[in-house]
């Protein structure tokens, strides 16, 4: 599914053959089936790739909302959902991948326009070895992330997504604070 006229673009980044790196593609697969079931596929462009590259900036053109779904290492569990802005895609020693914010930066430099409101759904993974299946922990995280993803896609509105990201961020901060207090005690 990659409708050029769709208002929402969802990028799923990862390699299905590398353990928990499959998190993004697995969630996208589920989203595609769900969208087909509720007959809302026309408003969503779904793009799966090993990693983000400069040409993905062109897939942002004409969208009102963008979502990047990726596995994370050492990131909050089960997932983190946050808003992102355009960033300079410099500072790497490799041409092999860009971060989501850098893709937005490329969009700005190529078009001279601001990219659409963009968000990252980062789902924590644990194991990324070649030929491995997703880990048990990742499967649990995927379930939690799927509920969030479906809720977001039921209401693909930038303000709603921003409010969700802020609410989750506050919850995360509170949880971290509780952990810190507990550790200190």
């Amino acid at each position, binding site marked *: 599914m990659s409708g050029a006229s769709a208002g929402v673009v969802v990028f799923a980044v990862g*390699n299905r053959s590398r353990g928990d790196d499959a998190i993004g593609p697995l969630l996208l697969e589920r989203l595609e089936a769900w969208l087909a079931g509720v007959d809302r596929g026309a408003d969503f462009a779904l793009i799966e790739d090993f990693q983000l590259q400069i040409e993905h900036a062109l897939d942002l053109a004409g969208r009102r909302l963008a979502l990047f779904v990726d596995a*994370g290492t050492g990131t909050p569990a089960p997932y983190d959902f946050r808003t992102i802005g355009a960033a300079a895609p*410099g*500072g*790497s*020693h*490799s041409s092999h991948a860009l971060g989501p914010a850098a893709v937005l930066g*490329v969009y700005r430099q190529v078009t001279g326009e601001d990219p659409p409101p963009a968000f990252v759904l*980062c789902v924590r993974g644990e194991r*990324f070895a070649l030929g491995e299946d997703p880990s048990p922990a990742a499967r649990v995280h995927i379930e939690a992330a799927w509920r969030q993803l479906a809720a977001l896609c039921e209401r693909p509105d930038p303000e709603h997504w921003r409010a969700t990201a802020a609410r989750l961020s506050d919850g995360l901060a509170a949880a971290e604070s509780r952990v810190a207090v507990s550790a200190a005690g």
Partner: protein
Amino acid sequence: MAFPLETAANPEKLRRVAIDPVSRVEGHGKVTLLLDDRGRVQQVRLHIVEFRGFEKFIQGRPYWEVPVMVQRLCGICPVSHHLAASKALDVVVGAARLTPTAEKIRRLMHYGQIMQSHAVHFFHLCSPDLLFGFDSDASRRNIVAVAQAHPEIARQGVLLRRYGQEIIRVTAGKRVHGTGSVPGGVNKAVTREERDLLLADAYQMIAWSRGAVRLIKDLHAQNPALYNSFGSFRSNLMSLAGAGGALDFYHGRLRARSENGDLLFDGVDYRGYADLIHEEVKPWSYMKFPFFTALGKEKGWYRVGPLSRVQNCDFIPTPLAEAERREFVDYSGGTPTHAPLAYHWARMIEMLHAVETIKDLLHDDDILGGELTVTGTRAQEGVGVIEAPRGTLIHHYRVGEDDLVTMCNLIVSTTHNNQAMNEAIRNVAQRYLRGHEITEGLLNHIEVAIRAFDPCLSCATHALGKMPLAVELVDAQGALVDALSRDGDGALRREGRP
């Protein structure tokens, strides 16, 4: 636990700490600078995650699945693996010679891959360094600054890359995970509509590629002292050479030159690679260190990739790129250039050649139809070699009577360049390390040296939160003196300092 140091002048005065396999690599890459007892850089170790587990991943699979499966090894050059595996398995299915349609479609796919890979490398990875210098403010050394100063450069890079991706989509079936190449040929031809669509933009791509060569030439002319010396070290060169000594990314025989440009071997059938090349194992790295068997590991290491190919061939079989090659060779007075920054110049000459070749192939009606596959007498073993964007790529398989793969061996370009990359970083570190602190400037310079090679970083895994590069400084007693890393968002992090 101490090991002898392979490149130290006085190894008896040095110690090094064995690195536990689990902590060998944190993130995408790590550089360890080892000091001697006088505080000078004696050795460098570039740690890169390699294709561990590949054999297990492939063994036991039906051979016809392999060209598709191997694309999962690398997200930046999956087509190279797709085609190298196909070439190896052509032998297994007895396809001694492909049909013209199949070979030309494979070539089109491969040259599209070379083009898009070189475009992203030059326009988006290296141009900030090259246009603003390595010592410029970090905020200016990014592609946004390039876009502001050279608004067309960044846009051209994206569109060149997209054009190459379109060629891959048309020939392989999909932009990623393509299935176009199969053992014995290809599974689809190009339609007239697809051909016409690609041809419409081909001349624009040639014009932009010529502009890129001009840009890098101008940069060399403006600061020859820097471009000719930064990270420079002398080494042997290896690549495939095509018919008559032509530059050929898809097929040829192995050729190598010494650091002075003398032929070490030529016209070698790549099926005999295992006799030609041995791989040394070092205890601190999963990645092996290949060398020419006849020269031994001390003198036999070599480099591959654009700088080797452009200097190893006798000519480039397209006119614009050939004119640029001649200028490149004249610039260095007819002897090989060894400066890592010259990789970029050679890379742009190759991109120009790739686009010229794409244009010629699109004008060839053989790609529109005809026999797609051939088969012949079945064999149990096949070797396929191709020139991937970063250099020579070797795939080797054995297949049982039951059609299942029983053995595979793979040598990627980053492995060929392993020793060369370590030498380049050592040269830079020796020149720019001051005292016992890893400065941002030193990190920048090390990154510039690595970027010239653009090593494969087991990139088929890409997870948020991974650390792009860490540099650590270890003293003669094995103690960590300093460590600096750059996160994915460009932020610096200093760790490990006592």
